[in-house]
């Protein structure tokens, strides 16, 4: 009888111990799983921030390099070309006095070539550093960009904004929007065989939207991504947007062509007026 009671007690204790272990296992799995997910999330966030920092640094370096090249072009090549033009002017007077028509013709051709080169250098410098963007803002920079493009191409580019006075944004945000607009328009010209491009810039209390629509052949962004055909352009757009917490969406309008919409949270410029970006000054750009 006593051994029977002892057996029951032992079994009861063993069963309770087993059940406690079962409860412990269930709790442990739940807790450990949750903890590991939190750790994974932390690691993922750190990686994300690190990648973002890398991307930011890469883009800053790109802008610094653009500025350096623009400065070199302006200060060195530009100055030398101006001096060459002056020398050619002086030489032209001497040649003019000699009365040789052939020499005069060669001289004029040389002068014209130098002038053309000076114009090219100036254009390249402006393309490299969007001085209008920093001096006057996004709308003026886009208008200037469109104006230059329309001069060079047989294109109709329309620009609309939902505000007349587009409020100034942080330097990084304005530059990002400008570069994305440049990339999208250049893509449309290069790949879409379009005749018309519409650029729409909209701002509300929270977001800035930039829409670039063309009437070209159109493309399927998903297929391009799946087939690893995404060039540096589309990746560059996504990288730039990742830094400013922006998004991009590609659409295929029913009437044809393609449309890209970039959306970025508003980040108004600080009280200090942004210093003009100018290729004359040698400084590191801080975007």
């Amino acid at each position, binding site marked *: 009888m006593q051994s029977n009671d002892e057996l029951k007690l032992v079994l009861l204790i063993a069963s309770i111990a087993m059940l406690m272990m079962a409860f412990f*296992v269930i709790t442990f799995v739940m807790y450990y799983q949750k903890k590991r997910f939190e750790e994974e999330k932390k690691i993922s966030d750190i990686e994300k921030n690190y990648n973002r920092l890398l991307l930011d640094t890469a883009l800053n370096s790109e802008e610094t390099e653009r500025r350096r090249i623009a400065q070199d072009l302006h200060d060195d090549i530009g100055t030398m070309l101006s001096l060459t033009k002056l020398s050619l002017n002086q030489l032209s007077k001497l040649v003019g006095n000699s009365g040789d028509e052939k020499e005069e013709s060669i001289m004029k051709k040389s002068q014209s070539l130098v002038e053309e080169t000076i114009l090219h250098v100036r254009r390249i410098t402006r393309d490299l550093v969007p001085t209008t963007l920093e001096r006057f803002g996004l709308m003026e920079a886009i208008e200037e960009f469109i104006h230059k493009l329309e001069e060079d191409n047989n294109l109709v580019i329309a620009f609309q904004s939902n505000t007349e006075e587009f409020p100034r944004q942080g330097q990084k945000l304005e530059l990002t929007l400008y570069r994305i607009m440049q990339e999208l328009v250049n893509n449309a010209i290069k790949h879409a065989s379009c005749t018309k491009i519409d650029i729409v810039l909209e701002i509300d209390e929270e977001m800035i939207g930039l829409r670039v629509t063309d009437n070209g052949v159109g493309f399927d962004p998903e297929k391009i991504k799946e087939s690893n055909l995404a060039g540096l352009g589309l990746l560059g757009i996504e990288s730039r947007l990742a830094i400013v917490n922006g998004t991009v969406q590609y659409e295929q309008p029913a009437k044809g062509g393609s449309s890209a919409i970039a959306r970025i949270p508003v980040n108004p410029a600080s009280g200090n007026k942004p210093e003009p970006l100018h290729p004359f000054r040698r400084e590191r750009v801080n975007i």
Partner: protein
Amino acid sequence: MLENYFSYIIRQPVISTPVFLNLLPILLIWRKRAYNDKLLLILFVYLILKLGVDLVMLDLASQRKNNVIYYNASIPVRYILTSWMYYYEFDSKLHRRWLLASWPLFLAFSLWDSFHTNPSMSDLNNHNVVLYSGTIESLLILFWIMLYFYNTIRTLKIPNLLAYPFFWVCSGLLLYYSSFVFIAPVLHYAAKWDQWMDIGTLDYIPYVFESVSLILFSIGIAQYRDKSYAK
């Protein structure tokens, strides 16, 4: 007839509760159409079979007849159906192979155990509970549960365990088989028709945790979402 049932249910509420509690997860699976999921379909079949066996056993118990043969026969079926769910949950081919290999082995073992425990199979009145099969079944299921939990925390495939039906099913099974693993061999000696041994509270522990496990199954099935089911 009904009086016998009611009398038995009133006399043995702890033993009778899980029989009727079986209906809760069955109805939930039916209502939520959770049988569209392979795993829950197996659970559905398992619960229906269990309900059938439990009702037959309740009927026999209320008539004071030996119902142990149904219990013995249900052990391999219960093991195969329960472990089948793990077959779909394991990603490793090796684990799946182990699991498949355990079916014929366990079936053979439980048959041997039944004949070994009851040399005279035709004598239903003195049929005894199998000696080893219940314990081996418990150990095997506990092993598959542990293996599943280990894989779960290693692979981190399920973002929210509490919203994952099979986690609740596993928890229910873990509690039930943990409560049963030490009691199963004792039943062979305790539950004899002519030499009944009173083991007191121990007799009720598996039934209590059977009810708990059925409630946990029901909680899990309630988490089932047709589209967002994790696997």
